[in-house]
């Protein structure tokens, strides 16, 4: 019944959610969920849009919709009223619910559809890299399946570094609140310094984010400030995790366990790696995991069947993705010796006059050039050859941008074939990433 909120007895005075503006106790969270549940009783069993704000009220709304057996379509808070309305039409939603951070719930009825669902469910809208939104439907049970409930995790403190309307964010919320823990929620589009300030004040022990997110924190918060966060575990996911970021995090947080996770919205959590090395052991391909995940490589692409997977798509399934329970992930994997490494996504490959270039691979090479603090490689459209390789780099503190640019050009001339060389090179203050925490691969 209650997937999101701890089922056992709770200390009502303990903080459930902490933000820079204040705290919400477990007692307040439970009361909010109860009040919202009364308010959405009229929507029972219906398909309902839920604007998921990163706050206690947002989580209480999800708990209320689960209790009422609704199918909750998770809507990001950044969506405009028009976009919400269009989604409501497309998915035949009977209402859109939005909770304010102060704990007021607004229910906007939409159409008089009689569509009913049999079981409480959650649909996650994911734009992916192709730009065509997919609607991925899970049951609460499937979503909560990877969640660990252990004595060690009981009443621990977590940091939310993903939007809670996406799979990764929802996992963090579930993992924390199902263990009666405390969730530290940074302000949406807050600065790195604010995130670190909150993490220190809340005493965050568990934090999960994309490599881009962690690089951002490492770049903009002094290491001595970061060290004051009492982290016991750092989790990375959502993007390819390379050795460089693992080593950088280990240098700042030597006491923290480093975990990298492979999960997708469709497949759910597939596996995690805890040995501190990039990639994953080849034996993962040879056996069904204890979590019920099977993997194989098909023409270089990782193909997976998972017990944590979605129920299915709400609406039409994208072509070529599913095949008898197996899902084509679009992630390219290369195996060397007893280890497999992610090379990037098929859709991210840059097509330079027919040659396919992995932006991730070029990025990893350019990142080793002295003076380069961070670098993003992406495709630049070219009428003559399709696409060219372009890059943005952040110069190291002391380095002069022009010198670093020349160093990149020289290194590329000496070491890369013509089609892999970045042709357009620009110095930037910081590397941007999407609201999902992922590096952008377009111009």
């Amino acid at each position: 019944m209650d997937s999101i909120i701890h089922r056992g007895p709770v200390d009502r005075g303990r903080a459930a959610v902490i933000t820079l503006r204040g705290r919400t106790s477990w007692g307040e969270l439970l009361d909010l969920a109860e009040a919202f549940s009364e308010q959405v009783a009229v929507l029972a069993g219906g398909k309902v849009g839920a604007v998921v704000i990163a706050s206690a009220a947002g989580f209480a709304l999800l708990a209320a919709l689960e209790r009422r057996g609704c199918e909750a379509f998770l809507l990001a808070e950044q969506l405009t009223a028009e976009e919400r309305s269009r989604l409501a039409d497309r998915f035949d939603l009977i209402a859109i619910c939005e909770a304010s951070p102060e704990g007021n719930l607004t229910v906007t009825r939409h159409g008089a559809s009689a569509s009913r669902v049999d079981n409480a469910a959650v649909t996650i809208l994911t734009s992916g890299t192709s730009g065509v939104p997919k609607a991925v439907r899970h049951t609460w049970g499937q979503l909560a399946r990877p969640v660990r409930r252990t004595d060690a995790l009981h009443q621990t403190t977590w940091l939310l570094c993903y939007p809670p309307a996406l799979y990764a964010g929802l996992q963090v919320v579930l993992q924390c609140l199902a263990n009666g823990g405390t969730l530290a929620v940074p302000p949406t589009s807050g600065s790195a310094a604010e995130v670190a300030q909150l993490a220190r004040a809340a005493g965050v022990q568990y934090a999960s984010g994309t490599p881009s997110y962690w690089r951002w924190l490492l770049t903009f918060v002094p290491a001595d400030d970061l060290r004051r966060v009492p982290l016991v575990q750092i989790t990375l996911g959502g993007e390819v995790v390379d050795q460089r970021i693992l080593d950088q995090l280990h240098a700042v947080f030597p006491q923290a366990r480093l975990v990298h996770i492979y999960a997708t919205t469709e497949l759910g959590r597939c596996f995690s790696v805890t040995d501190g090395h990039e990639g994953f052991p080849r034996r993962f391909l040879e056996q069904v995991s204890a979590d019920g995940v099977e993997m194989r490589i098909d023409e270089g692409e990782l193909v997976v069947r998972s017990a944590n997977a979605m129920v299915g798509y709400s609406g039409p399934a994208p072509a070529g993705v599913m095949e008898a329970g197996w899902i084509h992930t679009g992630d390219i994997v290369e195996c060397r010796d007893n280890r497999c490494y992610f090379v990037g996504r098929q859709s991210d490959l840059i097509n330079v006059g027919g040659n396919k270039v992995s932006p991730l691979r070029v990025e990893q090479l350019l990142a080793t050039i002295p003076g380069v603090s961070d670098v993003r490689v992406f495709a630049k459209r070219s009428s003559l050859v399709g696409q060219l390789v372009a890059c943005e780099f952040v110069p190291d503190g002391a380095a002069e941008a022009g010198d670093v640019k020349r160093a990149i050009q020289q290194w590329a001339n000496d070491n890369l074939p013509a089609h892999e060389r970045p042709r357009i090179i620009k110095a930037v203050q910081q590397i941007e990433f999407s609201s999902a925490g992922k590096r952008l691969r377009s111009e």
Partner: protein
Amino acid sequence: MQDDQIRQEVVSAFNTVFEGRGKNPPRMVDSTVLDASLGLESLDFAQVVVILEDQLGIDPFADGVPPNLRTLGDLIELYCTKLA
């Protein structure tokens, strides 16, 4: 935009590409033939066009490569015509 300015932008784009390749830019005149003898590869020409699109806001190759394009003078004239 003046034809002189366009000429400057085109020559400057070539210079940028030569410098990026670690080569000294050659002196380029209208009769300079744009082929391998210049020391540039096809991707280098593609780079020139992308740089000029950023600088001048147009890509005269968007609908294909026009015939009879051989020299620097031809290329400058192409940009001048499109921007006229």
